[in-house]
């Protein structure tokens, strides 16, 4: 199948190095301590953060740092064909773990000992790149909850199809069976916190693809920063300062 046509356009009309439209909104869940909606094209996720608060299960309490927990769930209507999946299947457990580890790397957990931070992500529409979208939404929600972080982690995926590196794969490109590199970075510190790839790729091309994904992460980080700044201005305005 042709994923990049001779004019250099992809199936959804994007250029190889073009990201899908981003949209973010802070404060979608009124009762949560922090929440955000993040959209990458047709992929749409909601993240909510509860905490830092008292540890619910005493045996999990850590004495010198905060306990970070994460749960990923997909809505029944999120995929094209409707499926009713049991909760806690392997895929969602794996993604929960990935998100938890990525967020744990950026939260200053040592500042909040003996407490618990819960991150819940809910996929409303899945069109490829849910992992990245969830991490981006979780970052925004954590920032909205005012939880101290080293940096804003952002994530983006890139692939390699028809001998072209492609940024931000959608569902059709993702299921084409080519390599899919998901990268999560701390943009200010310029460090990689998440790196996943399936399928195989020559090492020199891999470097290119990873570089492309990292560039995507930086672009998302800029966008997230803008959204947060705008939100802070709104809050300031409402306080009448």
């Amino acid at each position, binding site marked *: 199948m042709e994923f990049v046509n001779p004019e250099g356009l992809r199936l959804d009309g994007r250029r190889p190095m073009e990201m899908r439209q981003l949209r973010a909104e802070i404060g979608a869940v009124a009762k949560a301590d922090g*929440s955000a909606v993040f959209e990458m094209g047709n992929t749409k996720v909601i993240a909510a953060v*509860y905490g830092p608060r008292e540890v619910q299960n005493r045996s999990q309490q850590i004495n010198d740092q905060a306990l970070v927990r994460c749960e990923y769930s997909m809505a029944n209507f999120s995929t*094209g064909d409707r499926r009713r999946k049991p909760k806690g299947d392997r895929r969602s457990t794996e993604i929960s773990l990935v998100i938890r580890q990525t967020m744990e790397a950026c939260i200053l957990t040592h500042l909040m000992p003996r407490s618990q931070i819960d991150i819940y992500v809910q996929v409303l529409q899945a069109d490829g790149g849910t992992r990245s979208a969830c991490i981006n939404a979780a970052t925004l929600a954590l920032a909205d909850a005012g939880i101290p972080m080293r940096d804003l982690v952002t994530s983006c995926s890139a692939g390699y199809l028809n001998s072209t590196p492609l940024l931000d794969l959608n569902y059709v490109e993702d299921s084409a069976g080519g390599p899919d590199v998901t990268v999560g970075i701390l943009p200010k510190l310029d460090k990689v916190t998440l790196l996943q790839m399936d399928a195989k790729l020559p090492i020199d091309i891999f470097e290119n693809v990873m570089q492309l994904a990292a560039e995507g992460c930086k672009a998302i980080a800029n966008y997230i920063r803008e959204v947060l700044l705008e939100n802070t201005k709104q809050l300031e305005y409402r306080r009448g300062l």
Partner: protein
Amino acid sequence: MVGLSLGEKHFIQGGIDQNIRSDGRKRDTYRPISVETGVIPQANGSARIRIGATEVIASVKAELGRPDALQPDQGKVAIFVDCSPVAEPMFEGRGGEELSTELSVVLQHCLLGGKSGAGAGIDLSSLIVAEGKICWDLYIDGLVISSDGNLLDALGAAIKAALSNTGIPRVQVAAGALGDEQPEVDISDEEFLQFDTSGVPVIVTLTKVGRHYIVDATSEEESQMSSAVSVSINRKGHICGLSKRGSAGLDPSVISDMISVARHISEQLINKLDSEISAAEAGEDEM
């Protein structure tokens, strides 16, 4: 979970006794309702309803299936509700399952009528494509995004809005299939049929706190309830379903009183919802 101090409990109960609740509402007023339709592009119909801080999404998906052997002239409808942990940390893991099942069962009772399909809000015979062979299966999924009480009314309203937003593709059945053979079908990409949703009831929940009952309780108020009665009522004022929750018993005369109050309130709610739904659909067309 709602943790309230003794003072807060007295404040809520005292307010309800004096007909002015914590947020300034009267006992029989709803919080502002906002409706958005077509929020899930991959579904046949969808809607998002916000009642105060409660937010739910309902989506309708139609799939071709085989009708039940006992009811060859009817399609099938199933309602599933999911409580996302986003709404409440309590719903984490399997924690939301109990509430989800309770809500799905009540919604099923209130909107779909009995097993035979009699009294359903949706005309099940309109879902038939070829009698005894092909019908539409409607899957209605509700998702609770943010919970601040009164989930049942919100889900009922969201499903009503999603159904009125639903377009079912027109199906052409190829003639010539004999006997038990499944006929071939041609699903149109352009022509969609709209449902008649005027018969879909709304659900009004009356929550009893102390000696009085209130509509549209917030989660703080729900934590103080002794019992709650949910009545589903259609436009004609007919009662389509009834369910009572909570531990305390109710006097039969109180129940009939509550039902008549619910009937009165449902009129306002249906009118309000209808205008919100048509406004949402007009807004969607413009986009």
